């Protein structure tokens, strides 16, 4: 835990996150910046975003994430500069 905290504060990644549709409305904004430790995963990101915006989605609902315009699994490692978007259930057509 100590190491985790030191990474967060000494060498954090700053990541821009985009919200669309339902998530944009619930977050009350289109973008947000979150700080995560180096080597953080999509799951870490979702945890942090849920902490910042508790009303985004109920706990039992999976939040889908796209990294660099590709759907990402929860264990995918994030890198500085990644384009991260939260994708609510799609309904085009």
């Amino acid at each position, binding site marked *: 835990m100590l190491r985790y905290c030191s990474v967060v504060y000494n060498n954090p990644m700053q990541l821009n996150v*985009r919200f*669309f*549709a*339902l998530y*944009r409305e619930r977050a009350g904004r289109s973008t947000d910046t979150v700080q995560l430790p180096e080597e953080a995963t999509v799951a870490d990101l979702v945890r942090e975003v849920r902490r910042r915006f508790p*009303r985004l*989605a*109920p*706990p*039992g*609902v999976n939040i889908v994430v*796209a990294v660099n*315009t*590709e*759907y990402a699994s929860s264990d995918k490692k994030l890198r500085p500069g990644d384009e991260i*978007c939260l*994708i*609510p*259930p*799609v*309904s*085009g*057509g």
Partner: protein
Amino acid sequence: MIKAGMIEITDLPLEPEKITAQVCKDTNGAVVTFLGTTRLYSEGKKVVRLEYEAYESMACKKLAEICQEIKAEFGVEDIAIAHRTGVVDIGQISLVVAVASPHRKEAFLACHEIVNRLKETVPIWKKEFFEDGSRWVACDDHQFNPQGHKH
């Protein structure tokens, strides 16, 4: 607005003739066009208008991927897709998919399957506005359960 080859996402009204014209070639004998239009009723409730929102760069890429898959699977060469964003009034066109091929069977199957996959994977969202409220389509399981029992 984003356009890549025969794929377009735009907030302007769609013109089906122009989109279909892109796939017409004199080696094709069959052209199948799908128009998605906004309906007056959704699950029995009267809709006032719709709004579409897209993650444009990813939507365009996903549509291009679907086109590549469909071309390989169905042996068709000519596909054009246009999706509208922003406010779309009732009866207006939100989606045009045109597929042309030498014979009709492939064109029908390919066009149908493009629409199916589009609705599953392409990051575009539809919001329905009723007289007494609104909802993002397909997001029903994102409602918070007031009793907190939902998992």
